[in-house]
């Protein structure tokens, strides 16, 4: 059973000028457990909206959305809130997505407190919650020293690690990564991506990776969907789509991307196995080449 199965999902926004905008216009897709689906497209193509529709952070106008076999559009608000611990999202702007008044500990602990309120007895004890917060922070590369700091005292990369810890602490099965690295500089981008790839293996995560950066997607995703004006114009394995694009729009998008990086060995990268260490290392060497 696919972990995500959506059929003919539509979402229309009304602009202030009174026009209607078909942000997501009849999209169907399915994602298998443990894989990484990349969604690429230019700004305004509806890819972020799609990510939010999948998690019902926006309400879809029509279509069906099944997550782990559950029709989330028919869940009550309360049932949905209870299930949210399994389906998480990492946002593009790490600082904006962290409440500036809370400490890192409070931020990462909050999902556990919410789960506790929904009857998760394993999170009842404060000591247990602290243990989980600490171990999750460690998993994303942050020591105990960060517990009592606030988001403003962290670098962009550290902030994003906190955002990732917050989404992992309740042990989710599905994570939507909404351009998680696009506001970070290149070296940090590589290390965050490498970490996400490792976490995917160790925790058996399924990712939906939303990005406008073709190079990142090439290294990170097993399958890719190219989105344009609310529709998928081309889908397939990363290798198929990015090495041999069939659609004119995909070709245009590829041509508009930055030229291939000198000295990088991206042509030899095994694009379909994004989770292995070699592609992550490859991402970091590419980053080094650019920053050099």
């Amino acid at each position: 059973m696919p972990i995500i199965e959506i059929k003919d999902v539509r979402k229309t926004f009304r602009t202030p000028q009174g026009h209607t905008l078909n942000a997501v216009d009849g999209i169907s897709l399915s994602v298998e457990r443990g894989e990484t689906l990349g969604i690429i497209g230019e700004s305004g193509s509806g890819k972020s909206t799609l990510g939010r529709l999948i998690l019902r952070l926006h309400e879809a106008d029509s279509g069906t959305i099944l997550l782990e076999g559950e029709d989330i559009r028919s869940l009550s608000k309360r049932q949905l809130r209870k299930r949210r611990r399994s389906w998480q999202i990492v946002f593009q702007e790490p600082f904006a997505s962290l409440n500036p008044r809370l400490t890192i500990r409070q931020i990462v602990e909050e999902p556990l407190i919410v789960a506790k309120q929904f009857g998760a007895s394993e999170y009842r004890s404060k000591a247990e919650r602290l243990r989980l917060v600490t171990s999750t922070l460690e998993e994303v590369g942050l020591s105990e020293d960060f517990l009592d700091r606030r988001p403003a005292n962290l670098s962009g990369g550290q902030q994003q690690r906190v955002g990732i810890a917050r989404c992992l602490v309740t042990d989710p099965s599905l994570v939507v990564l909404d351009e998680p690295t696009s506001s970070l500089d290149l070296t940090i981008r590589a290390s965050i991506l490498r970490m996400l790839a490792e976490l995917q293996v160790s925790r058996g995560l399924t990712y939906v990776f939303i990005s406008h950066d073709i190079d990142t997607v090439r290294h990170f995703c097993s399958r890719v969907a190219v989105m344009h004006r609310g529709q998928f114009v081309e889908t397939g394995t990363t290798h198929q789509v990015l090495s041999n694009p069939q659609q004119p729009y995909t070709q245009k998008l590829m041509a508009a991307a930055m030229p291939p990086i000198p000295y990088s060995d991206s042509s030899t990268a095994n694009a379909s196995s994004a989770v292995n260490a070699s592609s992550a290392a490859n991402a970091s060497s590419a980053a080094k080449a650019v920053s050099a």
Partner: protein
Amino acid sequence: MSIQGLPRTSPGLRVTGWPRRSRNFLTNKSSTVLTAIAVAVIVGLPLLALFAPLPHDPFRPDTNAIGIAPNGIHWFGTDGNGMDVFSRTIEAAKLDLPIALAATALSLVVGVPLGLFATSGRIGDAIMRVIDAFAALPIIVIAVVSIKLMGGGATDVILAIAVVAAPRFVRLSRASAMTLRSARYVEAAAAIGCSPVRIAFNHIFRNAYGVVLVQATLTAANALGTIAALNFLGVGVKPPTPTWGAMINDGVSMLIRGEWWAAAFPTAAMLLAIASLNVIAGAVENKIERVERVR
């Protein structure tokens, strides 16, 4: 003051060495002293009335000492009934200040949640229309009528003032909630399954309480004036219980004979309390601004 809680787009944009805006002629140190004095006045005056021995019984008229000018025995003189003005001025703090603070607290407790939840939907719109209607009515008239209708004790005064002050808190917290509702961390809170109540308090109010707090101290100062006005008009707490407003009323009739002290001292006490609350409001605002700048 910068807008509360609106995250900067990038931490890298933080401006360093931003010049400290001096909001008054006072230096940092003397404004701290001033704040300490203000807090001492607000907390100390009622405590003094409660626990300190007053030089005279504030309720006992002395027919042998009517309208005496300030002297060594009656520090602030005596009023038209021969009651000691100093003792009554202090005694009045026991009632006036707690009523003002209680009314403010009540309007906060009622107004802030209403504002946080009235941001959308039909119920929210309905709440705001009621608030608009309230704001259109003349404050003092409503207070006088409602207190008269309710019978007129301290609790009625608190209720009336709270009802009059609450709309301001509703608007203020609603405005903050509207701004912060679209903040990314509020969306993140929804994404981890936080309830609307939890989002409202833990995420929105936490980033907006500064403005509300400043407004609260100013409201308390305002309430003091309103209480005095009510007592001056003879509504509210019944004589001979001293309140600043009632004392000023009594004292006004003595002014004509040049006996200024019976009205002047309660007026001064009231002004001192109002000024103190304003100083506290300024200090709160200043403190918040500093916190803002550190982040």
